[in-house]
C-alpha cells in the first residue's frame, strides 16, 4: 500500500498522502479553499456546500464535489476556483445569508465573521432572497447559554461537537427540510436537558447562533460607578492571559496579563487579583484532602472538582461518584472568598460592598457562580463571570489598543502565584500542582520534584505512576467529557485503577474552554498550552505550598487547610440532580 501518490491540482503535479481529503491536500500545499461548516475538531458534516472544487477520477469527466469530505485517490485531477464552482458557491452563500438574520452588534463573531468574510470573497453584496427566519426561537433560560435560532445556518456542528467531544446527546434536529431546527432535544430549552454547559457547541458554531449568556450589560452598569459604595474587583483565570491577545490579532500563547490588568483598571475596576493565587489555595486544600483520603483509604479515587461542567455531569449521571469529588472549591471561588474575607478585612470594608467579576475561558462558570452551594460563604462569592470573548468586546468598546498599553501588576496581597498555580489552565496542570505539593508533604520535604511531565499534553486520557517514599500514587488526567465517560466505565469494570484523577470537560483543559476566542482548534490549543509551561519555568516559586502570600492568608485566617475558617471558606457541598 503506497503511503503517498501523485495527483494533479490546478494542472500541477503534487504528492498526496493516503487517506487525506482534498481540503487537507490543499491546505498542506498552501492552496486556499473557502470553508464554513468545516472544523478540524469534528468529522466533516458536508452541509454548507461552499468548499466546492471540480474533480475528475481516472481520466473521467469533471464533476463538482466538496473538498472537506472527498478523499484524494490515485489518478485524481483537482481544479480549484473554476467558473462553475465560483458561480455555485456564490449562490449557496447567498441563500445561506438569507437564512441568517444579521444581529451583528452583539455577536461573538462581530469582528471576525466567517459569513461576512466569505461574502466579501465571493462578491455577494446583498441577497436577492427574503429573510426566512422570522419565526425564530430564543432560549436564554440557562445561566450559561444563549441560543438564537434565527442565526442558525443548519451546519450541524453543534450536534457533532456535543456528540464527538462531550459525548452527550443534548442537541438534536427537529422537523425536516427548510423547517429543520437544530437545537436542544424536543425543541425545548437547554434548561430542560442534561446539558452540562461546557460550551463546546458555542465554540464550534460558525454563525453565532449559540453564544454565551452575556452579563456585559450588568457589568457595564456597575462600571459606570453610579453606586459609589461598590468596590469592583476583577480576577482572571490562568488561561485568560494566553488567549486574550487572539481577539486583537495576536498569536495564541502570548502572556498579556500585564496589559490586561491595565485595561481592566482603565475601564473601571478598582483592584485586579490573580485566579492563579486562588489556584494555589485550591492546590493546598486539595493536596491535604488527598493525603487524608490516602490515609483513611476512604472515598478513593479522588476526582478534581474545579470544572463546573464535570461536576454537573457527576451530579446528574453518577450520583455514586459524588463522595469521590474533592470538596475543595474551584480557584475562582477560593480567591473570591479570600477577597471577601481576608482582603475586605485588610482594607476595612464590609464584604457586601465588594463586587467580584471573574474573567474565565469558561461558560459553565456562569452557572457555577449562581449555585446556592457556592453562595454559602458569601452571597454571592462571584457576582459575575464573563468569558474571554466578552471582556474582549468590552475592551474594544473602550477603544483600548491592548498591545500598546503600559504594564501593570496584580494588586497585593492576592496577586502573587507560584508556577503550580500558573499551569492550572492546561490539562494536567491541576494534577501536576497537586503532585508537587503532595510529593513534598508525604515525604516530609525529602522529595522536591517539580516536573511531572507525564501528565502534560493535549491527549484525552493520560496516566502516570508516582513513587513517593514507598507510596505508589496512580493518577490519571482526562480532558474532553467523552473521555471521562470511558474512564469511569473502565474504573468500574476494574480495567484501570487510580488514586487521583483530574477531569476537565473541555479538550486540552480550560485552554480549550467554551468561553475562549473563536476559532479554537488543536493547533491553537497547542500554542496556548506552550505559554503556561514557559511561564511556570520562569517563576521563582513553583510550588503552591511555598507561596508566601498564601501562607500569610492562612495565618490571617488562623487555620490550616481543611480546618476551621479555611475549611468553611474553601470547601463546598454537592447536589444530586435529577436526570432529565
Amino acid at each position, binding site marked *: 500500500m503506497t503511503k503517498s501518490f501523485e495527483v494533479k491540482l490546478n494542472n500541477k503535479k503534487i504528492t498526496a498522502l493516503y487517506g487525506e481529503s482534498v481540503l487537507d491536500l490543499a491546505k498542506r500545499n498552501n492552496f486556499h479553499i473557502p470553508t464554513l461548516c468545516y472544523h478540524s475538531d469534528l468529522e466533516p458534516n458536508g452541509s454548507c456546500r461552499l468548499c466546492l472544487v471540480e474533480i475528475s477520477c481516472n481520466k473521467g469527466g469533471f464533476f463538482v464535489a466538496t473538498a472537506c469530505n472527498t478523499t484524494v485517490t490515485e489518478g485524481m485531477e483537482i481544479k480549484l476556483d473554476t467558473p462553475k464552482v465560483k458561480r455555485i458557491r456564490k449562490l449557496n452563500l447567498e441563500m445561506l445569508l438569507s437564512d441568517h438574520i444579521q444581529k451583528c452588534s452583539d455577536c461573538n463573531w462581530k469582528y471576525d465573521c466567517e459569513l461576512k468574510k466569505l461574502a466579501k470573497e465571493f462578491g455577494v453584496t446583498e441577497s436577492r432572497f427574503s429573510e426566512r427566519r422570522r419565526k425564530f426561537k430564543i432560549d436564554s433560560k440557562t445561566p450559561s447559554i444563549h441560543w438564537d435560532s434565527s442565526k442558525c445556518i443548519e451546519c450541524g456542528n453543534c450536534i457533532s461537537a456535543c456528540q464527538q467531544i462531550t459525548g452527550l446527546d443534548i442537541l*438534536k*434536529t427537529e422537523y425536516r427540510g427548510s423547517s429543520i431546527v437544530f437545537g436542544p432535544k424536543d425543541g425545548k430549552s437547554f434548561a430542560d436537558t442534561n446539558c452540562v454547559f461546557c460550551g463546546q457547541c458555542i465554540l464550534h458554531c460558525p454563525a453565532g447562533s449559540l453564544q454565551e449568556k452575556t452579563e456585559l450589560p450588568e457589568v457595564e452598569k456597575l462600571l459606570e460607578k453610579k453606586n459609589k459604595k461598590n468596590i469592583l474587583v476583577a480576577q482572571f483565570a490562568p488561561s485568560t492571559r494566553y488567549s486574550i491577545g487572539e481577539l486583537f490579532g495576536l498569536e495564541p500563547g502570548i502572556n498579556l496579563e500585564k496589559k490586561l490588568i491595565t485595561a481592566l483598571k482603565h475601564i473601571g475596576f478598582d483592584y485586579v487579583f490573580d485566579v492563579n493565587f486562588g489556584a494555589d489555595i485550591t492546590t493546598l486544600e486539595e493536596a491535604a484532602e488527598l493525603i487524608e483520603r490516602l490515609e483513611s483509604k476512604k472515598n478513593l479515587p479522588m476526582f478534581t472538582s474545579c470544572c463546573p461542567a464535570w461536576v454537573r455531569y457527576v451530579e446528574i449521571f453518577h450520583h455514586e461518584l459524588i463522595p469521590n469529588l474533592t470538596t475543595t472549591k474551584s480557584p475562582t471561588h477560593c480567591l473570591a472568598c479570600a477577597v471577601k474575607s481576608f482582603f475586605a478585612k485588610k482594607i476595612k470594608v464590609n464584604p457586601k460592598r465588594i463586587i467580584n467579576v471573574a474573567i474565565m475561558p469558561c461558560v459553565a462558570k456562569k452557572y457555577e457562580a449562581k449555585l446556592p452551594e457556592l453562595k454559602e460563604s458569601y452571597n454571592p462569592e462571584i457576582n459575575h463571570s464573563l468569558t474571554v470573548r466578552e471582556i474582549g468586546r468590552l475592551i474594544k468598546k473602550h477603544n483600548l489598543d491592548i498591545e500598546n498599553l503600559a504594564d501593570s501588576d496584580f494588586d497585593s496581597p492576592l496577586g502573587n502565584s507560584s508556577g503550580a498555580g500558573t499551569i492550572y489552565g492546561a490539562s494536567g496542570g491541576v494534577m501536576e500542582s497537586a503532585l508537587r505539593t503532595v510529593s513534598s508533604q508525604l515525604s516530609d520535604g525529602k522529595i522536591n520534584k517539580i516536573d511531572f511531565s507525564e501528565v502534560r499534553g493535549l491527549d484525552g486520557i493520560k496516566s502516570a505512576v508516582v513513587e513517593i517514599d514507598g507510596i505508589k500514587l496512580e493518577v490519571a488526567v482526562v480532558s474532553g467529557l467523552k473521555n471521562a465517560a470511558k474512564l469511569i466505565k473502565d474504573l468500574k469494570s476494574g480495567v484501570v485503577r487510580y488514586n487521583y484523577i483530574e477531569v476537565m470537560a473541555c479538550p486540552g483543559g480550560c485552554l480549550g474552554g467554551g468561553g475562549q476566542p473563536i476559532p479554537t482548534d488543536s493547533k491553537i490549543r497547542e500554542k496556548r498550552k506552550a505559554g503556561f509551561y514557559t511561564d511556570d519555568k520562569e517563576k521563582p516559586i513553583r510550588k503552591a505550598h511555598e507561596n508566601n502570600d498564601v501562607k500569610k492568608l492562612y495565618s490571617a485566617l488562623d487555620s490550616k487547610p481543611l480546618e476551621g475558617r479555611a475549611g468553611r471558606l474553601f470547601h463546598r457541598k454537592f447536589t444530586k440532580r435529577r436526570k432529565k
Partner: protein
Amino acid sequence: MDIIKALKESGLVGLGGAGFSTATKWQAVKDSCEKKRFVVCNLSEGEPGVFKDEFVIQRHLSKMISGIEIAAEFVNAQKSYIFLNDKYKYYQKKIEKNLKGKKIEVFIDNGRYLCGEETVMLQVMEGKTRQPRLKPPYPTNSGLFGYPTLINNAETFYRVKLIADGDYQPKRFYSLFGDYIPKKVVESDLSSTVEEIINSEKILSKIKFARIGGLSGCFLPRREFNKQITGTGSVEIFGKRRNVFNALCQSIIFLKNESCGKCTPCREGIYRIAEELNNISESKSLWDKEEIFSKIKSIAEAAKESSFCPLGASVANPVISAINLFPEDF
C-alpha cells in the same frame, strides 16, 4: 448454479432507479473483509408515481423472497430484512406468512421518499437521524451497523429469481397512470419508449406531455415520446387541457416536503424555487418572468451540482425540463 455468472451474463441492473450492475454489487459484498453481512430488500417505494414494487408483493411475492434467499446465501448473510414502507402495512401479514422459518425479518417505517436512498434507509434502521450518509464508504463495504450490506430493490430480487430459474427475459415493470388511463403496471422490454408503453394511438393523440420518473423526474412533450424510459420506470400522462406549471408546482412541493434539510442547495434552494414559482404566478410582464426563470435555473444548477444526495440533485429535472420545454405554460 453459478448465480454470479448468470447475473453477469444477464446484465441485470438495479431496478430501484439508480441502475447499478447487480452482479458487481453482489460480488463487492461477497469480497468484503467483514465476516458479518446483511441483505436488505428496499421496499420503501416512496415515489408516489411508482407502484411496481407493490405489484411485486401482490403477484410475485414468493419469487421476490426467493431472490432474497439466493442473495443471502451468496454473500453468506447473517440476516436479511425487508424494509417496508408503512403505506404497504396492509401486506405485512401476507409477507410474514411467507417468511416463516426463514432468516428474513420485516422492518416497517413510515416511509417518506428519502428512504429510497439506501444510506437514509440504513440510518432509519439504526435509529439515527433521517439524513443521508457520505458515500464512500458504500453500504457494500460499510452498511447496516457498519457491516457490508447488500441492498437491492424488490423487483430486482424478483428478476434474480427468474435468472436463477432460467426464466429471465430482459424486461422490467413500468408504472403507468394519469389522464385517460387506469393505473396499471406494464411489463415491457428494458429499452421501451414512452409510446410503446402507452401502446394506444387513441390515447396518445389526447396527450400533451408526460412526467417520467415520478415527481423528481423530467417532463417530456408529446413529440419526444420516442425516447427510452430510464430511472424508476414511472410514466404519468397529462391531457391537452393540463398545465405544466401546475405539475411543476406539485413536483416542487413534494421535494420541498421530503428534503431532509441537511445541505444548503437542497434545503434553501428548493424553498427559494417554491417561493419564485409563487412570484411567477403573480408576475405580469415577460421581462419579470425571464428574470425569475433565470434565478430558478441557477438555483437548480447549484442543487444539481452541489447537493449532498440525489434528492437535491433531482430538483433540476422537473425545473429545467418544464422551463425549457413549456415556457408558455407559466
